[in-house]
């Protein structure tokens, strides 16, 4: 096999973090219903993120000199899975903590690190990621938003769309064209850190089918960027973005999106005394598939911790994980429907309805299923 998953256990000292963070989450999310928890990493609560920061649980993998905890991937795994598994409202800091911070650490100048990283660790800088454009989704290299070099820096024109949290964020890290044309594909793309309070930026939230507005369309009209807005190498944006996406695909984010629904369902079965082979096998199937996927995700984490690059494995886990996340509402709906005499609570009905409607997005965000399967096929030597 070209892909290689080796069973790994969480080290004891990382496991030791679990109970304190679980207790913290329990205390601070008591008021939340399953319906709210089901937003998973789309649930926004800046105060919650600030409280997490006060506990030292933001920027875990960043160096201490920037306010981080200098911890490794396993620590991050434990904290992430506790937050996501409980449906805590993490979206305010999530992208900064997971992607932007590590990106700035890796590609940023010393000045950029000194400026942004401490803010990220204190939950004072929320980030979004500007990738898709109205005419560029999966074909990301065809983007047209352009930064033109001037004497004072850069002038930015264009637009981004489906940008998660743009309306709540302080900064966007955007992939834009800095030279050449769309025909040049991957060449001539660069990443910029854009201060979203600058003149010339309009952010328009987009309402989704479930009634939420977690993503936005962002318009740039002659936005004047300072020279230091560029992050990393000019023209190396494509490589930088791909490194970032590999990171995005590797965590427990792709396991627990439907977890609030599952917990709600199990709680209700216990409370109402619903029990039958069909209910048992529904709960058992979800449990077993989650357990195996979690082991796969941990194997990816172990590779990262060993300094290896598990990009292919991470892609595979993401595709497999989103399939399960999307199967969960169907399995639960199928099971509930076997017993028309049972009356589920309004909370369960509401949560099931929400997850059923929003779950197609699980295999769209961060690379569609079709793109991921193409990446796996390339890894297997088929293309």
């Amino acid at each position, binding site marked *: *096999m070209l892909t290689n*998953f080796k*069973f790994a256990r969480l080290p004891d000292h990382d496991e030791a973090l679990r109970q304190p963070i679980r207790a913290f989450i329990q205390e601070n999310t008591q008021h939340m219903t399953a319906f709210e928890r089901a937003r998973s990493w789309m649930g926004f609560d800046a105060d919650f993120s600030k409280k997490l920061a006060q506990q030292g649980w933001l920027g875990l993998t960043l160096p201490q000199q920037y306010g981080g905890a200098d911890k490794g991937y396993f620590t991050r795994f434990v904290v992430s*899975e506790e937050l996501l598994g409980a449906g805590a409202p993490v979206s305010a800091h999530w992208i900064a903590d997971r992607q932007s911070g590590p990106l700035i650490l890796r590609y940023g100048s010393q000045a950029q690190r000194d400026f942004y990283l401490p803010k990220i660790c204190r939950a004072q800088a929320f980030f979004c990621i500007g990738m898709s454009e109205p005419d560029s989704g999966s074909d990301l290299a065809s983007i047209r938003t352009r930064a033109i070099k001037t004497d004072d820096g850069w002038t930015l024109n264009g637009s981004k769309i489906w940008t998660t949290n743009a309306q709540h964020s302080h900064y966007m890290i955007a992939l834009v064209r800095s030279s050449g044309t769309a025909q040049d594909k991957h060449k001539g793309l660069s990443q910029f850190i854009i201060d979203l309070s600058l003149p010339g930026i309009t952010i328009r939230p987009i309402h989704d089918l479930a009634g939420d507005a977690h993503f936005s369309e962002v318009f740039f009209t002659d936005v004047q960027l300072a020279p230091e807005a560029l992050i990393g190498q000019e023209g190396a944006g494509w490589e930088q973005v791909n490194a970032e996406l590999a990171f995005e695909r590797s965590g427990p984010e792709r396991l627990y999106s439907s977890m609030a629904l599952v917990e709600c369902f199990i709680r209700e079965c216990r409370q109402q005394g619903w029990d039958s082979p069909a209910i*048992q096998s529904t709960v058992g199937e979800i449990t*077993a598939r989650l357990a*195996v996927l979690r082991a796969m995700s941990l194997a990816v984490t172990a590779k990262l911790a060993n300094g290896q690059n598990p990009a292919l494995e991470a892609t*595979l886990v993401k*595709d497999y994980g989103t399939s399960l996340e999307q199967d969960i509402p169907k399995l639960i709906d199928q099971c509930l429907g076997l017993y028309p005499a049972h009356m589920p609570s309004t909370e369960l009905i509401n949560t099931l309805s929400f997850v059923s409607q929003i779950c197609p997005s699980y295999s769209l965000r961060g690379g569609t299923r079709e793109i991921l399967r193409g990446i796996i*096929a390339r890894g297997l030597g088929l293309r």
Partner: protein
Amino acid sequence: MDTLLEDALGELFRHVTSGAAPGLEITTDQRKAISNEIYASGFADLLLPQAAGGSGISLSEAIGLLKMEGYYNVPIPFAQTVVTRAWAHAHSVNLPEGTFSYASSALQIDEQTRSATLHKAWHGHWVDHMLIATDQQCFMAHSHERRVLQTYHGGLFAAVAWPAQGLTRLDLDEQATHDLFNFSVLAMLAVTVGAMEKAFELTLEYAAQRQQFGRPVSKFQAVQHQISEMAEHVCAADMALQLAAATDDNALTAPASHQLAIAQFQIAHIADNIADIAHAIHGAIGISQEHPLHHYTRRIRECKSCFGSAQYWAAEIGQQILHKNNDTLLAVLTWTQDEKRTG
């Protein structure tokens, strides 16, 4: 993983399957010859401690070796024999020499004719000894008294019967019976995953080699995506197996029931998907007897539900979760190793 052991066993399996085997017409004599050769190699004792003549490796390290029975389509129950010998050593059970197979539950005992019948016995038509567990009892069935009712196509399973005197009741405690079951399930899962990995390799090779419309079929996106999906299933099956085999470092500790149920579910759940995609990519040639694919897809399909189907195991897992405690599912998923053992 001890690659030296893997290389040596791989070499042995390639050698023993290079003659008439593993064709469909393999005779009992040929199977016995292969069995004797593997026995003589000492590999049957690989899970025993070094002091007892074994290799001293752990169960999780041994998984790669147990899978090879399926991967090389070895026509004897090698994995079952290995785990049976480890189990017997752990519980101080005296067993005769020879190749072992195992079955649980579905033994029909007819008090009037004083005979016992088993309709799906793993290598039942020729294996030296069968251990048969039924409702807290465990029997050893002797080959010399055996009557073969039917050997199913492919020769993996047979229907067999024994007169009452052909069965010896073993005096085992509950733990020993339970451990034997868990070891046996793990052995069957390992063999099944080995066959899945081989079916995947055959599929990758075939897709790259078979030309249609002027190019290899692997260049078509519809084919690529099916193979990607197959890769996901095969990786998940292997991870499930590793999860079940992750006992402590003592190779004689049987797999824990909770993880084993998860593995058994996962592997049974995706088994047919794997076989179906392998056949879809191979086209008509994969249906022929001449092409080796059927050896592996037959193993996948016939072994996946041997000890209970996906739905059966799902219900077992779900029942535990619904009845046993009030933990959240997250708490169950993140049980540490020690908690799982008591769970």
